[in-house]
């Protein structure tokens, strides 16, 4: 058993900026635990010496030249914004500075 707790699920929801009702919290705790239990087959393997694969192919050094390309028109960019002011995206107040 993964032993996933309701508290952990609530913590994860906070990290992911999702608000879960008590009902959803209960349901997700059960459902996520089931999925994690299914992963137990994998966890029992001894893979200490296996290298992790994050990419299917071994491409390296994919780079582009440092040449300016046209940017988007600001009007087009801000047209999609839920709120804009003074050529900027507007948001409600920010609590706290960036990490």
């Amino acid at each position, binding site marked *: 058993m993964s032993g996933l707790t309701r508290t952990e699920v609530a913590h994860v929801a906070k990290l*992911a900026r999702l608000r879960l009702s008590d009902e959803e919290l209960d349901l997700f705790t059960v459902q996520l635990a089931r*999925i994690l239990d*299914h992963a137990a087959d994998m*966890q029992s393997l001894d893979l200490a010496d296996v*290298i992790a*694969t994050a990419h299917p*192919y071994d*491409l390296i050094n994919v780079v582009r030249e440092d040449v300016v390309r046209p940017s988007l028109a600001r009007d087009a960019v801000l047209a999609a914004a*839920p*709120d804009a002011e003074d050529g900027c995206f507007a948001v409600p107040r920010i609590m706290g500075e960036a990490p």
Partner: protein
Amino acid sequence: MNAITMAEGVRAGELSATTLAQESLEAIRARNDELNVFLHIDEDGAMAAAARVDDAVARGADPGRLAGVPIALKDNLCQVGVPTTCSSRILEGWRPPYSATVVDRLLGAGAVPMGKTNLDEFAMGSSTETSAFGPTRNPLDPTRVPGGSSGGSAAAVAAAMTPLALGSDTGGSIRQPAALCGIVGVKPTYGLVSRYGLIAFASSLDQIGPFAANVADAALLLEVIAGHDPMDSTSLPEPSPNLVSHLDDGVAGQRIGLVRELIDGADAEIVDAVERAAAVLAAAGATIVELSIPELRLGLSAYYLIAPAEASSNLARYDGVRYGLRVDADDVAAMNEATRTAGFGAEVKRRIMLGTYALSAGYYDAYYGQALKVRTQMRDAFRRAYEDVDLLLGATTPSVAFTFGSKTNDPMAMYLSDVFTIPTNLAGEAALSVPFGRGEADLPIGVQLLGPGRSEARLFAAATVLEDAERGS
């Protein structure tokens, strides 16, 4: 009419792209209310694209290899100015200011995009039932799902609304609906088709691919969209492969592995179809080798950690700041939370939660880290198999199209419907589903052909052998 015939007719001046687009629009309108295939029908864009093709033909200019062929686009592909939602409330109303590379290539080849098709929200699902805009119905039996996540695109081709469609395949999202809708669907080698402009679900697994009613059309469409793109760092460096010219290469002399893990657990009628397909390939000169690749059994577990982990990060940007939905709140963090809570459906939330958990401090090694190692094992196992055989054969799905609601209450049951398709995505290799036989309620069965990276020509040739056998039967 198939796509190749249409394009030839348009190029020869015998068919009008405008007429083909109008006929496509009529076919879409005739059944879209019933089937919910298209979320957005781009009539103006389609008619304009068709007019440009007719113009080019009239001027004597080359209108392109897909001249005048109507095509449906999965609604996770960006097309400038055309609403793109990923079937999510969180993106409702968003019109991208740029187009995906594949869309540019389609337009460059004279294809006529008809609009955007329904999918499971952010491509997370196997039935289109997680779409925020209602499920798509299977044109062959509207009480059943078309499969997913590219269910709308598969249904568009199955309902003859368009001869071609594009989907994306992260764990089977092209092959599974192709199988359930009785058409051809291809998951190309990772990196063969540019992902630029494909709204990411799981970046290391996602790949755009074609749907078509026949193998040759699918090959032509893939040729048009494949090839290196400098906008995608994971794009393979080589140009588009020659596929159409190899369709009739056959399978004589090839060794094809019938993989136990790719039929185990499938319904008897599916296993039967795969075995008959093996017999057809053998009759065409291939040597069938029965083999077992035990590592494939771990695919589902690894996939359901890797894909959600990447998704949890890819979907962080839907925060109500720059585009899409915003639900107001007093401060920006509360606004982010309110927006995401209202904008995402349950399945998307479930996977974001799962992925966030798998990456979080204290669990990374046990879950995500371990899954990446399993991925290595899976890739190595495939490579070992391909030292002995040229292609692999198995089922695409465990069953024919299922009915609505039959798996929605149990996420694990739904996930299991991708058990045969997921390993290819983890390995970054190529596979396709081709219709072969019929099962329960006369519903189509798809068999899956799998090959190593860059083996598309061989896959299409083998698929042609099966298709020819089906037509002859």
